[in-house]
């Protein structure tokens, strides 16, 4: 793809706004459509677009495999961790009311963290699956 000048320029312009839009979808999910799942996929799409244009090697310099593997577990752990934090603070599992003095604030905090966990895991899983497919060549 390196010789497609137009594709390269357009993709370079697009990657930034896509990442920004993903963050918007992530943190605006309480107010409009969206949330962790969608944001994670869009965030991953930006990296996949980058990889399609600039190749896997360049992308893995930006986003190494070990970071990805860490993030896969981190997102899920964040979600479960919020659940246990609720338990330790005296509520039920994933009962966000216990997270803050005001139950409504607790709900806000819980939803934010949980959605973040979903987003991180979905993003890294999507990119990891893409890496796994794209890293293979037809011969091996």
């Amino acid at each position: 793809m390196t010789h497609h000048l137009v594709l390269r320029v357009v993709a370079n312009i697009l990657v930034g706004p896509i990442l920004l839009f993903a963050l918007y979808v992530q943190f605006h999910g309480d107010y409009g459509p969206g949330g962790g799942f969608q944001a994670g996929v869009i965030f991953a799409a930006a990296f996949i677009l980058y990889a399609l244009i600039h190749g896997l090697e360049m992308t893995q310099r930006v986003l190494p495999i070990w970071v990805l593997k860490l993030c896969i577990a981190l997102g899920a752990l964040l979600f479960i961790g919020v659940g246990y934090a609720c338990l330790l603070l005296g509520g039920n599992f994933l009962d966000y009311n216990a997270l803050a003095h005001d139950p409504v604030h607790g709900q806000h905090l819980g939803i934010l963290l949980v959605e973040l966990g979903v987003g991180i895991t979905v993003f890294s899983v999507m990119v990891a699956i893409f890496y796994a497919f794209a890293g293979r060549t037809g011969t091996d």
Partner: protein
Amino acid sequence: MAAIVDYAVLAFLAVTAVALLHFRNLFAVVMLASIYSLLSAALFVRLDAVDVAFTEAAVGAGISTILMLGSLALVGSKEERPRHTPIIPLLVVAVTGAALIYGTLDMPPFGRADNPVHQHVAPRYIQETPEKIDVPNVVTAVLASYRGYDTMGEVIVIFTAAIGVVLLLGIRQPRGEKESRSNEKGPTRGGKASE
């Protein structure tokens, strides 16, 4: 007016589905599947399920298309003609389809306010969300708070999918970086590099 949009999108869906069956070139099939997802997303928007439409457009039309193209790069894009006759598969599909359509006859009419789905927990979610959770998007409140346990399960499913793919396919370093890492990766990698 809105009904025209519905029928138009549904007609496009049907045309795309038939075209999907018709083509032998898998590259075209993947593209058509992507179009099918995008049309479904449009349909979800019409049904006021914007969150679902969002996911369908991002996952169905976006990422899964890329992954299918990635696999096509490995297996080639020409489908072989099946050697068996299509009668038995056709029979299975017809019987399953008839059973499913028969099943929908028992379902309550679409969009009626007194349908069972609107009588169970939904009214409580809609009434309680503004005061107890105070987020404008009730879908987020249901997904992350009321049904937080389910969502956790979904995250674990995705997590498991990644583990499965990584174990089966493995994530590899591209060729350029092999030299620096070949020492720790053992003889198989070194052997390949010398070929």
